[in-house]
């Protein structure tokens, strides 16, 4: 993965980001798209559980909790702080 490419797992340091794409075509990636991670969707970082636990992001007026392993499939572009 190119150095410049950021994923949702890096979101804690960015706070607000825009979704570029979701990697992969398997059911996991497809479900992430179905949950609303489509290009140009704005995603906000809310919080992360301690010890590398799941993160909470908000998008499309709802909050979703994801594990870092899934968050790494979502390629984002920082909108602030990056």
């Amino acid at each position, binding site marked *: 993965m190119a150095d410049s490419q950021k994923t949702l797992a890096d979101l804690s340091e960015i706070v607000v980001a825009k979704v570029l794409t979701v990697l992969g075509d398997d*059911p*996991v990636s*497809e*479900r*992430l*798209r*179905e*949950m*609303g991670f*489509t*290009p140009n*969707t704005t995603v906000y970082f*809310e*919080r992360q*559980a*301690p*010890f*590398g*636990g*799941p993160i*909470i992001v*908000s*998008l*499309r*007026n*709802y*909050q*979703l*909790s*994801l*594990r870092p392993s*899934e968050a790494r499939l979502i390629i984002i572009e920082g909108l602030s702080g990056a």
Partner: protein
Amino acid sequence: MPEPENALNYALVGSPNSGKTTLFNALTGMRAKTGNYPGVTVDRRAGNLKVGNTDVQITDLPGSYSLQAISEEEHVTSRYLRGELGDDNLDGIVFVADSTSLSRSLPFLLNILNLNIPTILVCTMIDECKARGGDIDFFKLKAELGIPVVGVVGNQGLGVTDLKQFFLEPQKWKTSGVPTFESTEQRFEWADKIFEKVLRHPISESNLTRQIDRVLLHPVLGILVFAVFISVFFQSIFTWAAPAMDLFSVWVSQLANYCSNTLPPGFLTDLLSDGIIQGVGAVLVFVPQIAILFTLIFFFEASGYMARAAFVIDRLMGWAGLEGRCFISLLSSYACAVPGIMATRAIPSPRDRLATILVAPLTTCSARLPVYAVLISAFVPDTAVWGPFTVQGFTLMGLYLLGGFSAILFAAIFKRGLLRGASLPFFLELPPYRFPSFKTITVQVMGRLKVFVRDAGSVILAGSIALWLLLNFPHHQPDSNLSDLQNKQQQIERSYAADLGRSLEPIFSPLGFDWKINIGLIGSFAARELMISTMAQVYAVSEGGDDFNSFAGVLSKEDENGVKPISFAGAMSLLVFFVYAPLCLSTVAVVRRETNSWRWPIFILCYMFILAWVASFITYRLALA
């Protein structure tokens, strides 16, 4: 499922937390019926209502985010909508969307519209949407989608009457004007365009939710709150349910006395008052406790905290190789393993699901509560520790935690060995905090209680009668030289039940169990609740107690030599045995049904029996030392 002929059939479709169940209850009241879909194990909830002279049947399909199903519940929804499940001729789809997160639901709706089934859109929680500054132009939305749109507030019944009127004419729910989409992204793009046009003012985030989460999801405070949540949970079902339970048990013994005093004496009267009323009654006593337990579970689920608890506990569950959602299943198993195992259908990964099923019977189901309650009351002092918290309460909590930790530990063992493999995605929606609808919770709790009482009325009734017969046959001819009490003791000691209990002594005596306890263990395999009613028969009779006021009293009463019917070590060993006790018949049946093979129920029986025996043996030796 009985349904009037020519009834119009509608299905409720929507994501979890969309307010679908509240709407279903608002439409059908308390008349919902639970059945099964042919060939699958997911419960089918359907209800009837009348609009004018027209009969309408509504099916509440399991909450889904997509037609591309990843869990068994979602599979039911998508297969039902494609006409692959059931013989219902679907007249229309009622698509339920939370108006505060409409932007996520619209693309799913477009997918549904592609099915070419008449569809109506119901936007729920419009009051909350408005309070958060949102303004959606429903008229424009209707024009853009080409289908009727109704806004409702389900828990207040607002808009429900309007919705019912639409049920009369499904042919007017047009679905034209929506193209077929090539990709999910294209579908979202289309939906986003519609959403932009109809959104007059954006919805701000819920301030209340933000404030509460600042505490409840705080790295340190969040875990403290979680610990308090679990403590309150267990204290309330034990300590705080006691008054209602005492009242109940007084009624039961009064009824039993009334029967034995008014009916002509004889075999049938004995069977009725000693076997049936006290057997079933000893179980019905636990109705208030189970009601409290389910009320708490449903309350926390509907309020939005349960999803947060899953988030807080996900790291620990992740260590066990499970995910946060398995926690909800395991917590439900604390009420009863049967609904807990049924709730695993919402877990997408088959391996996680199987691991959860294998360990769910280790969590302390409410049927074990009678056994714990009686033994704790008899052997643990009722000393207050702090305020309403007592040593008895904490002992119970310890037993519950032992069950819970064992479940996590064995899940970790299974996931690292038997069920090794890649884990599937964890994603969990955190709905805004909402004050749960009293009516919805009542309907859900009543539904669970009905199941519990029905079981008490069938399995436990049959079990109580069978055990009474085992205890009273072969019939011992009363000896006129002996007292009534001595005759009764002679009867029990020569019964088939005693033979059975004695034949098991080689297996159970290393754990400190005598033949009387063994009879109870046999009963507990039919249903764990039977342990108590069986032991009540064995002890109430053999210890000479005529009335069944307090079984605990009988157990803790010392005889002339200062010896209690069960020793302290034996009682502790029995408590631990019950933490791991091999599952009951209904759990065997549900595991068989959910895993579709005999392999797993037999596996669970074996590993739990070995575990129970070893743990009890250690406890007994330690308590004796």
